[in-house]
């Protein structure tokens, strides 16, 4: 089985991996690069726990052959997290208690980041539509929606108090 070398951008750095054909981006991140924030819930595109951004757009990394991201820009939770402190979306998730077990959180944060990039002040309908592919079995979603609204305020400079 011929292995190939694939180069892509991860969190602002160029990375090069040696892979067997059609290894998924999810597998490369978790098993080769040690970036285990990206979760492995279903490998069916159905849970959203593996959501990463490719050129800024959310995608299911479990369905993406690594060859398809050659030369493209991949953003994971690890790339989002600053050296000191937290990204505003992460901080809002903490402030709103938007996770319990935390399994869905990396995917939720990546999706929320992408949503706020597209729509800095999304209403509940837009948030619900955006989140529809990401399952959370713990929170009942309300705190996640609140966190996104909170982050929206924080990132636009109109800092709002935590909703609760």
């Amino acid at each position, binding site marked *: *089985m*011929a292995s190939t070398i694939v180069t892509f951008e991860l969190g602002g750095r160029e990375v090069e991996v040696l892979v*067997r*054909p*059609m*290894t*998924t981006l999810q597998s490369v991140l978790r098993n080769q690069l040690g970036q285990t924030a990206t979760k492995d819930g279903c*490998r*069916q*595109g*159905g849970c*959203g726990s593996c*959501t990463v951004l*490719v050129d800024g*757009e*959310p*995608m*299911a990394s*479990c*369905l*993406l*052959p690594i*060859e*398809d991201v050659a030369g493209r820009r991949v953003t994971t939770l690890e790339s989002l997290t600053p050296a000191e402190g937290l990204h505003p979306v992460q901080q809002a998730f903490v402030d709103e208690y938007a996770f319990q077990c935390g399994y869905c959180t990396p995917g939720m944060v990546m*999706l929320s980041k*992408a949503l706020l990039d597209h729509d800095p002040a999304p209403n509940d309908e837009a948030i*619900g*539509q*955006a989140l*529809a*592919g*990401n399952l959370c079995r713990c929170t009942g979603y309300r705190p996640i929606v609140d966190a996104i609204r909170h982050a929206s305020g924080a990132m636009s400079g109109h800092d709002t108090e935590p909703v609760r």
Partner: protein
Amino acid sequence: MTVQAYLLPRSLPEALGQLAQHGLDVLVMAGGTVAMPLINDGISLPSVVMGLRLAGLDGVERANGRLRIGATTTLTQLLQQNAVPVLREAARNTASWSIRNMGTVGGNLFTPPPGGDVAVALLALDASVTLSSSRSARVVSLADFYTGFMTNELAPDELLAELWVPISNEPTAFLKYGRKHANTPAVVTVAARVTWDGPTVADARIALGAAGPHPIRARDAERLLVGTDLGTDAIAAASAAAARECEPFTDAIATEWYRRRMVGLFVGRALQQLAPGAATEDR
């Protein structure tokens, strides 16, 4: 994973050449949202896969009163066009954001029921598809494309290259009924369109999803509408006919019994949207 080679052609001719060379051994994949889950689960065990993501087959443009949709146009790209509003409505009601960023319009035609929501809208719009091989290209109407459950007109050496949709000013109604508000498999999907000859219906299209082995036309119902004023009686008769002629199935989402009743209900609702005096929300 047992894949020996993953081909990523950079153009349609290159893709068709590779297909001619590898023939039946190659699994074609566009967005991978249907094919990859099967590969990940070991249900599909291809040795050679050809990915179309880099083959330059995406893009939407107007051409001579028609919309040309490249086969690998993503569902998100379909949401961004304005020429045929109902295709936006169909894409919006398909899958989730991440999946729409990956899944393609062409791939939707190959998705087994209850999937194929965009295909249902395309069927009501009288869309056609270009099937290309290294030797030739032919255009087939979508109504003739499907031949059975997961079978179609595509030959082993052909790729779906592009789709053609006539652009018209008539509204097309699109209703998808699922068990959740978003990212939900269909209980039933209905797309309907009528053309008028003054106050009477000249022609009608009613397409159904999750109501047969592939997206189907409710032809008895369509015929019953011709010559009517699309009044209450005509709509009731057409809805009943659609419920009779469809071929729904039982799965984890709904029973055959329930789907048949929902076909009747949702065909009625779709036609009401098209009836004279209906609140005309231009779709």
